[in-house]
């Protein structure tokens, strides 16, 4: 399957979800890094996914950029042999399966499209023959439109994530009738997007009697907020009807300091919950982290009917899946 993210933020989101899903299913996960692993790991920790222990045990492995690039310098049979070794190794080690993702864009720089498509076809064969899961990520920064269209056509499934807003700096995803997740940075350039989001979300909440009275924004991946935006969040909460609250969850320390300086502690209808870093994976064990709710399906609980993260979505977030399949 493939994904075509709009932004780095979405690339991290999609990749982290894919990795977390593999860890949940007790699969071995291989990440071919070429400059994005750090962002994906950061996103995993934002998502409260304990990845430290899987990294230590080898359940999650990150292939360094040089090694990722080197694949495209080896012959096809050599690359296939290497992959088979990985796959057989994970079975021997007792993992429930094998999945891989990462940045393969180095391949398109060389002899596009012949080599790249061949490698992809070979990978596809492994997916069919050996039941592994592979997520190919084609983003517009690393691939041209033509390349993306061509690669889209040769993949059977495309993951698409419902996006409320994404300008490359800030990404907003609706996660429920009155909740959303923000990732990236808010400043003077995209401040109105937040105001609109709050307005429409509150409007939805007020119109529906069954909707929760808490408007919840998850700020785990919000790395910067400027003063005027923080002030507007505080003012928005103060402007809510008495029945409703604005709840900011998983707020990073830096963002929290800005909110504090902008009067957040004095706004009665604003609740701010600080991000509590995921403790060392060794303490919590691999797989689902209590309280996260996102990857709560433990290993073995899935039917294993195909390489599709997201088909165990029942009950997650009231029918707002993190990943939704298109095509």
């Amino acid at each position, binding site marked *: 399957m493939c994904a075509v993210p709009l932004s780095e933020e979405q690339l991290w989101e999609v990749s982290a979800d894919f990795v977390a899903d593999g860890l949940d299913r007790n699969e071995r996960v291989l990440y071919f890094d070429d400059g994005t692993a750090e962002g994906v790991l950061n996103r995993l920790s934002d998502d409260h996914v304990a990845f430290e222990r899987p990294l230590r045990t080898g359940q999650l492995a990150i292939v360094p950029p040089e090694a990722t690039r080197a694949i495209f310098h080896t012959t096809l049979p050599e690359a296939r042999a290497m992959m088979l070794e990985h796959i057989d190794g994970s079975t021997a080690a007792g993992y429930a399966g094998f999945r891989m993702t990462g940045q393969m864009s180095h391949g398109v720089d060389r002899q596009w499209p012949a080599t790249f498509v061949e490698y992809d076809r070979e990978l596809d064969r492994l997916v069919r023959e050996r039941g592994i899961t592979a997520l190919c990520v084609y983003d517009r920064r690393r691939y041209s439109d033509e390349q993306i269209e061509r690669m889209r056509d040769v993949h059977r499934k495309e993951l698409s994530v419902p996006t409320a807003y994404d300008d490359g700096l800030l990404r907003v995803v609706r996660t429920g009738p009155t909740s959303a997740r923000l990732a990236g940075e808010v400043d003077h350039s995209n401040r109105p997007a937040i105001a609109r989001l709050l307005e429409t979300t509150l409007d939805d909440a007020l119109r529906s009697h069954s909707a929760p009275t808490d408007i919840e924004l998850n700020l785990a991946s919000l790395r910067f907020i400027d003063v*005027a935006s923080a002030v507007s969040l505080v003012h928005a909460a103060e402007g809510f009807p008495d029945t409703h609250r604005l709840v900011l969850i998983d707020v990073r320390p830096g963002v929290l300091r800005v909110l504090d300086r902008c009067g957040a502690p004095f706004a009665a209808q604003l609740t701010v919950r600080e991000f509590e870093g995921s403790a060392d994976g060794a303490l919590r064990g691999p797989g689902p982290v209590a309280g996260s709710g996102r990857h709560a399906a433990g290993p073995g609980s899935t039917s294993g009917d195909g390489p599709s993260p997201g088909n165990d979505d029942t009950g997650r977030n009231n029918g707002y899946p993190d990943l939704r399949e298109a095509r």
Partner: protein
Amino acid sequence: MRVETTRTAAPVRLQHACAVYSSSADLVEQATPVVAEAARRGEAVVLSVRPETEARLRDAAGSARVVALGAGTPARSSGQTTAARLARELRELTSQCGAVLAVSEHDSALDGIDGRYWTELDAAVNVALTDLPVSMFCFYPEMPLHSEILDGAIANHPLLFEAGRLHVNADHRPPRDVLAGMPAAPPVLLGAPDLDMVFSAWQLHEVRAAVADLAAATAFDTARSEDVVLAVNEIATNAVEHGSGEARIALWIAGDGLVAEIHDTGESLAEPLPGLRAPHPADPRGRGVWIARQLCDVLHVWRDRSGTHVRMHAAP
């Protein structure tokens, strides 16, 4: 939306008085009864004076609480920065122990080329301390090296202290008027910056990334680095929001921290001394510069024909 007024029923006002002395002995003689009287009322006494003067006035204060404001880290000849720091310390002190008497003495080492530091300082004090229960007595020499110092002092102080009595100064003018005649001076020029870039509102994230990179290269810890990035972001935002839409930033990194200069060709900061007064919670504007001032060791705003300029210095 909440509707409130910033006015309180019984406004506390700064009492800002100017006094002139002929000699150090004269200064001590004039200030002693003022300090003694404040001590009798149970007020704390804040001194920003030369060491010899300080020793004598401590005697006068007796058992009253005395706080000496040393030079500390230099404000780099930015009167507005000195006033902002003074306001921060006095706000804390007055919240603890009520009314405060402050005595300051002219120090020619801070005159700079034309002494306008003092005019800027007193104008900024009028803005920054306006809502604090502080009586501030500023002592100036009869014959300063630069006559502008005394002209500025007379224009800036609503009260004059003469022959042991306070009276209203007929020549007092508001800060904006005073600064129109004698605007804040540009700071000392620095060498070639480590980074120089032109930016618009859509490139503020690049400005932040540049500041974060430089801060990471020195002794800034994560929290301090984030605060400095925020401070620079706020000034940069002002420059593109109210200026011509495009502004320039220059960054220097040195052993004693990070220096940022932001230039725009418009009137991005309409007030002559922005960010000195705490913004009201219901006021959406003006908080950025206020917060930036709290986070920086120096924040100096000056204006000339080419536009508005801000220099910020932040130590780790």
